[in-house]
Every structure is written in structure tokens, then in C-alpha cells.
């Protein structure tokens, strides 16, 4: 059986979903695209040869009867659309951030469970090949017990997403309580929550605006820097979001009682660092060569994957979608635990409360 998939919300990220799904014809096929603006649904359908497109989600559900719905709309609509899809018997993949508030996230998870349908959220970096390799190393006991996690997410406001939201004071990102941070910092927390067992760990956050004001509206006070410290009973974590550091880093480092492991999501490397056993100055000389050797090994592995055509930009998205579809077809647990989704939403809400971030008021159109 192949799953019939519908895409709702035909913005930038929808392309990535369709491109990955069409590379797994053994599991699924995209049968329809939907957007409130029919021209947007039409362009996605035209570019990828999707047989049907709609501007009415109810009609799509009634006519196409999809098995799975991917919701790639702005977060404010996620709860309502997911609820309708669940009622129609669909499994639902929701883009991150899952919802604008913790309460909505809880409701959404409860509804999926009550409907007996599988829910997942677009935490794709957790499924990037080096992140999967890191989890294997940790499961094999290579780092010992985790002690501390460092999660860093750099952002470029001049990039495609950044410039789109700066150009438009009414961009949906400005309607989220945490605005720019809200659309990004689940990438900080979703890497921590699997190590921090506590229901509500202590959290300390500071937010900053580093840009110079230039719009004269709510865009000017949007936070673009964040520092967070999370203290669980056994494991602590630092989270950093920065829109100004160059090159914009994206890494996660897990410090353990035996060794430390670092995943660099941009260079697609996973590096295990151990304590040098060599004496005196030799112990300071050799580690650089050891690390160089490990990086070279990673580079060669990546090159081999590239040569086999297995080194794609959206590798994490592809792995996540596959794992999710497999859970539907085989009846296994969903790839991202619901507990983690709620934990991420709780941390985000706490951050926004502490730094005083609020949604920008709707701006009357000029």
C-alpha cells in the first residue's frame, strides 16, 4: 500500500516536502496541494506534477480522502487544520513550530491520541545523518552519562526567510508570541529534551535586539539574539540563538562523563572527543592530528555518500518522513515522542514570558 498524501500550505517549505516524498514512491505519493490562495496551490502542483490542487481544505478532504496530510501553513492555523484532518481520519505531519502556545500543543497532541492517528512535527535536524550517528554513539555508551548539552542555532536575516519577514510588517512570523525566535528556537530545544527528563526544568533566558531600528514599526523590536540556560536534575543545557554571528553556526554538543560528542549540522560531521592518554607535551601535540584524522574520515564518508547520490540537502527531512510513514504502515511508535513536543513548547513559552516577547499587533495595511 502506498499512502496518499496531501500538502496544505504551498509556501517555501512545501517544496522540500514534495521533493522528498516523490523520492519514496514505494511508500507514498502526493495526490493534492491546497492553499487559501489558489494560485499558490496551482504553482506547486504545476512544478511538481501534482494531479489536483484546491483552495478549500474541506473539499480536498472530501474528494481526495488522503491518508496523510502535511500541514505547512503558518502556525496559527495548525491546531484547526490538524483537528479537521484527524476528524477525517488522516495522519498528520505538522511543520514546526507545532502551535503558537503550550496549551494548543497539548490540545493538538491529545486530539491525535484520541483519534488514534499518528502525529509528527518537522524537527528534521534530529534525523540528519550525523545526528542519527550521534544517538548511536550515545546509546552505545561512548560518552558515558550525559552531563551538559550545548545547542547553538545561527540565523541569517539576509537569507530567503529572514528577508521575507523583514520586508513585510504583516508577515505571519510577527503574529507569533516569540516572533523570529518562535519560528526558530524549537531547533535549540528539540535537541535538549531527549537528555533532560524533568517535567519542568528550571530555565533562565535573556533576549536581545541587536539590529538598528529602521522600520518605525514592530519589526524594529523583534528579538534577534537569545541566551538560555536550562537546569534539569541531572543534565543541564545552554541554548544560543544568534542572528549576527558569522558564519552562522548550527551545532549540538553533548558533554558526557567519559567523552564529548559534537554534531555540526552544516559540515555534516559528528566528532567524538576523548581525554588524551599520552603524557606531557605529547599529550598536547597529538590531539590535533587525531581530530584532523577524524574530520578527514568524516569527509571521506560524506564523499562516498555523495558518489552514491545519498547526500541530499534535506536528508533530515527525508529520514523523518520515511520514519513517520513507516510508523503508520507498520503500526510502530511515531518517530518523535509526544512528550518531547510538549516539553519543547513548554520551554519556548517560558522563554517568551521571561524575555517579554509578544506578538506584534496587527498592522493596518498601508
Amino acid at each position: 500500500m502506498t499512502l496518499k498524501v496531501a500538502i496544505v500550505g504551498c509556501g517555501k517549505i512545501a517544496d522540500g516536502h514534495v521533493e522528498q516524498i516523490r523520492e519514496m514512491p514505494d511508500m507514498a505519493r502526493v495526490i493534492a496541494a491546497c492553499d487559501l490562495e489558489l494560485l499558490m496551490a496551482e504553482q506547486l502542483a504545476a512544478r511538481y506534477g501534482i494531479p489536483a490542487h484546491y483552495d478549500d481544505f474541506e473539499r480536498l478532504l472530501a474528494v481526495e480522502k488522503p491518508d496523510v496530510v502535511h500541514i505547512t501553513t503558518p502556525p496559527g492555523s495548525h491546531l484547526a487544520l490538524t483537528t479537521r484532518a484527524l476528524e477525517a481520519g488522516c495522519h498528520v505531519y505538522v511543520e514546526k513550530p507545532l502551535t503558537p502556545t503550550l496549551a494548543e500543543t497539548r490540545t493538538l497532541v491529545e486530539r491525535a491520541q484520541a483519534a488514534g492517528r499518528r502525529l509528527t512535527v518537522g524537527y528534521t535536524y534530529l534525523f540528519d545523518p550525523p545526528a542519527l550517528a550521534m544517538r548511536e554513539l550515545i546509546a552505545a555508551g561512548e560518552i558515558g552519562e550525559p552531563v551538559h548539552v550545548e545547542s547553538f542555532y545561527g540565523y541569517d536575516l539576509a537569507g530567503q526567510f529572514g528577508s521575507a519577514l523583514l520586508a513585510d510588517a504583516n508577515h505571519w512570523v510577527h503574529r507569533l508570541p516569540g516572533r523570529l525566535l518562535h519560528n526558530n528556537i524549537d531547533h535549540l530545544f528539540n535537541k535538549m529534551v531527549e537528555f533532560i527528563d524533568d517535567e519542568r526544568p528550571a530555565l533562565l533566558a535573556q533576549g536581545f535586539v541587536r539590529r538598528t531600528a529602521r522600520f518605525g514599526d514592530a519589526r524594529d523590536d523583534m528579538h534577534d539574539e537569545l541566551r538560555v540556560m536550562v537546569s534539569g536534575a541531572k543534565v543541564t543545557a545552554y541554548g544560543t540563538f544568534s542572528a549576527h554571528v558569522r558564519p552562522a553556526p548550527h551545532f549540538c554538543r553533548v558533554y558526557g562523563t567519559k567523552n564529548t560528542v559534537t554534531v555540526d549540522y552544516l559540515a555534516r560531521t559528528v566528532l567524538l572527543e576523548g581525554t588524551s592518554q599520552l603524557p606531557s607535551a605529547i599529550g598536547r601535540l597529538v590531539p590535533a592530528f587525531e581530530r584532523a584524522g577524524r574530520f578527514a574520515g568524516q569527509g571521506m564518508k560524506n564523499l562516498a555518500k555523495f558518489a552514491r547520490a545519498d547526500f541530499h540537502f534535506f536528508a533530515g527531512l527525508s529520514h523523518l518522513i520515511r520514519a513517520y510513514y513507516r510508523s503508520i504502515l507498520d503500526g510502530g511508535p511515531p518517530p518523535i515522542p509526544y512528550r518531547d513536543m510538549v516539553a519543547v513548547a513548554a520551554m519556548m513559552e517560558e522563554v517568551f514570558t521571561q524575555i517579554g516577547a509578544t506578538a506584534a499587533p496587527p498592522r493596518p495595511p498601508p
Partner: protein
Amino acid sequence: MSVLVTGSNGFLGAALIERLMARGETREVRAMVRAGSDRRRLDAGAARYPGRPLRVVEGSLASAAAAARVLEGAQVVHHLAASLRGAAADMFLNTVVTSKNLLEAATRSKSPPRMVLVSSFSVYGVADLPRGAVVDEETPFEAAPERRDLYAQVKVRQERLFRDYHAQHGVPLVVVRPGVIYGPGGSGLSVRVGLRMPGVFLHFGGSNVLPLTYVDNCAEALCVAADRAGGDARTINVVDDDLPTASAYLARYRGEVERLRSVRVPYPVTMAMSALVERYHHWSKGQLPAIFTPYKSATAWKGNRFDNARLKALGWRQIVPTEDGLARTFADLAARR
């Protein structure tokens, strides 16, 4: 007459505003800009014509209601606002959906203004024409836009939308299709000359004539089309006379602007390479983008000539000779380096 220009702080937009003021035939020139956008080009042009009736209107085409506020009272609209690059969804949103909002607003107004749409040569279906064929306004529209680059896809859809609104709602329309617009402040090397790669410029254009139009000549063409082409959806190509070949242009660019290492790629080699890139793209399941395909390469480098007889028949004259246009452009490019 009140004339509205969207995209007025762009390369062509700022030149059009200047041209409208220089001609002095318009009661009011309204320059639409989005809030927070860079207005330096527009301001510099306006400063050269103090006392002329220019009004800068901050607005948006993000909804039909917003577009209606921008449109109010305009008798002619030069619609230049478009997305030149970016993600596919953004390009469609900022070119096609904004056009729909503008057209919706026009249909709701008591007296719809005449729309002058700035389309593009990229809407022509030239891939299957013989090499050297002359493209005029009767050349068929692109039938397979999904095989073209995003810019062409977006411009094809935009022009179809305008034609639909003309046919179904009677919105008066002139479609102007410029070639490669060049001039001071513009970019130096069009894709029709070739592509800049790390360390080397791949020169694909060879002896093809570059379909250039100097930015002021193009702006003049828009004014002429708006005045004299009626509103019955006529198409008008805009391209200058006495045009250089791609190789002559590149030679001059290398002499006057930048010492560029370039390799000339003959057309058959370009096509063979494009076929390989496309096959690799499919085999690798999109590991690298299909920036070259035989279809795309044929549209860019097969070599067509473009006809401007219809534009001349309307009374357009090239106000800046090509030789002067090139000299000014290369001097500006050299100064900006």
C-alpha cells in the same frame, strides 16, 4: 492624466519615473514603494526634476484591498513590481499573486485604468525554433514553462493572468516584453552572455546577438506604449538597434570593466553538457540542481534575433544610441568595482 508606477524604486522603475518627468506630459506621476524599501534610486532621479508632479506612495499589493488604495484615481498603471530571484513560492507570491490583487482591484474600480504590463522575452517559446530565427510578437507563447527557470515560469503565469483579466473583465491592457535591460546601476553580464563560475566565466553566448535595451530606451518604450498602443492587449517587443554579439560585449567588458578569465563554450558542447547535468540530476534524485538542461540552454543560447518593428511603428525612437549606452554602462561598472 495620473500615472502609477509599481516597482518604482527598481532599476527600470526609477528610469521610468525620470522619463515620465522628463516628458512632462503627465498631470501626476505616482511612484509606489513598499514600506521600508530602499528608495535611493528613486530619490536620486526625483532630485533631477525638482518641481515636477511626483508623488511617492507607500503601499502594498499584498491584498486586493491594499492594491485598491494604491490604484485609486490612476488612469494608467505601469506594472513593474516583480520578484527577480528567491524561493519559488516567494517569486510566485510577489509577482503572480500581487498581480492578481492589482487586477482584482482594477476590476472593482469604476473605470479600470489601462495596465501596461512589463513582461519579458522569457515568455516566448523559443526552445524549438531554428537557430537564428527572428522572434516577433506573433511567436508562440512558452508552452512548457515548467521546463524553464523560475523567472520564466513566473512571468509566463503573470502574463497569462493579465490576459485572462483583459478577456474576462475587460481590463485595458498593453503587454510590453523587454529584452535584457542594461545601463548604469544594472548588472554587467546577462545570463545570455554566460555564467560566472568560481574562477572562470563560462561564455555560452558566442556570436548570438544580445537582445539589449538601454534602461532609458526601455522606459521611453513604456511611455510610448502607454500612449499609443491602445488597451486591446497588444504585445510589444522592446529591444534596441545596432546590438553587439555576446562575444563582442564580453570582449569589451573584459577590456573596460574587469579582467575576467573566460572560456568560450560552443553551442553543441553546451547542449551535451546540459544533457549530462540533467541526467545526473535525475540519477542522483536531485542531489545537485538541474541548472542546465537542454531545454533551458536552448532558450538562453540557441541564438534568436528579436524584432522591434511594432515598437517603431508606434513612433518609438531609440533615445540613447547603443554605443553611448554601452560606454556609460561599462564606465559605471568599472567605477563600482
